């Protein structure tokens, strides 16, 4: 029945904006550590991008990642990272697989890959902006704490969600 689908649709929309908001506050405010040297910052926002990737349908997850991280960049003044962000964050979503559980072997490995690829992509972007790839590499190595932290937070959150029953209503696989 076509008229019943619209419900799921709204549900996804609301959940998308909710996750985008979570990405926003964890990227921009909560446990947000400015890196000082390059105007960037370290944060655990990616954990929520990973979470969106497993909870939401892929296109929605990509949009959510872009909107959440983009807004954070604007509000923290990192206008300069806006374009790389809008391209890179949605890519991270592609490393995850929707399944019965959030924390599966597949998704743990996915989060590690997402971390590495994300760092490499940012490194390239940084290289373009700063004009030198060598220094970008050093910076990104320091920046590795960010994806590692995000993976850990993602796994902890994922376990919590898997254990709880409430997500059964909300997960769209």
């Amino acid at each position: 029945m076509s008229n019943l689908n619209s419900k799921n649709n709204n549900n996804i929309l609301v959940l998308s904006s909710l996750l985008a908001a979570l990405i926003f506050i964890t990227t921009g405010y909560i446990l947000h550590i400015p890196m000082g040297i390059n105007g960037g910052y370290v944060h655990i926002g990616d954990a929520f991008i990973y979470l969106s990737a497993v909870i939401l349908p892929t296109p929605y997850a990509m949009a959510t990642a872009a909107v959440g991280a983009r807004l954070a960049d604007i509000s923290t003044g990192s206008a300069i990272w806006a374009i790389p962000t809008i391209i890179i964050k949605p890519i991270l979503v592609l490393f995850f697989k929707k399944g019965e559980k959030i924390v599966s072997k597949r998704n743990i490995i996915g989060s590690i890959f997402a971390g590495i690829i994300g760092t490499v992509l940012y490194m390239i972007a940084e290289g373009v902006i700063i004009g030198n790839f060598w220094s970008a590499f050093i910076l990104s190595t320091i920046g590795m704490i960010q994806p590692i932290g995000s993976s850990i937070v993602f796994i902890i959150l994922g376990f919590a969600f898997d254990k709880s029953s409430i997500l059964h209503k909300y997960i769209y696989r």
Partner: protein
Amino acid sequence: MSVIELKDISYRYPLEKEDTIKNVSCKFEAGKVYGLIGENGSGKTTICNIIRGFIPSFYKGELRGEVLLKDKKLEEYDYEDLASIIGYSFQNPFTQISGVKETVYEEIAYGLENLGVPREEIIKRVEELLDLFKLRELAQKNPYELSGGQKQRVALAAVVALDPEIIIMDEPTSQLDPKSTADIFEIIDILKKQKKVVILVEHKIDLVAQYCDSIIFMHDGECKLSGTAREVLTNPKVLEMGGQLPQVTLYFLERIKRGEKFDMIPLNVKEAYSILKGEE
């Protein structure tokens, strides 16, 4: 003719072993106020969700029987249009803020915007509602910075704003002071005069007795008693099944128990007074 009709409805929530609603049938006519009463967990909110179509479209589970809206099955309606036909204010006032608007004024206007009502008309309607619900002082406040009762009034106003033919109110006065509660019942009376169907879930039985034309008494998912307010609310069986009766009715029932006789059992203070006066 009935606007809404439930035909032998049974419903089971997902993962539950027993039916939550058992063989309920009832009819709702225009220009009447229906009181849906019964103890906590008797299935009142569930019935509201069935009438609004949230069951089975939102809450899954197993629904048997038929819901007819103007003689057409509810599921044959476009889901998109139902919001403008059936208004529904929910039980928990704290989660009924849309979250997309910054002032009470815009919050009330939100539904009308979605329905594509022209701007001038929206303003006119919102102004009316601000007066009707006595919200003028709060119009420019952020909906999140209101007290419990204020939030509840705003939520109800936002639903009445859509001007639906059927209005479901699930405990619309639970957080309200006596004066505001009386105001809401006055509004219910106005809606009734506008020939709406009003379905009211309410624990404040004295007011239900005074304002409702018809009562549906639920117990354990079944519709145990239904009829006019007088038929249902003078019946001591209601008490046995965890329900409540109006204060003055209880008083008279107590006197009857002590051996006195009355021609009529009153439902509200005025009736009680005229009976007692006649007695002297």
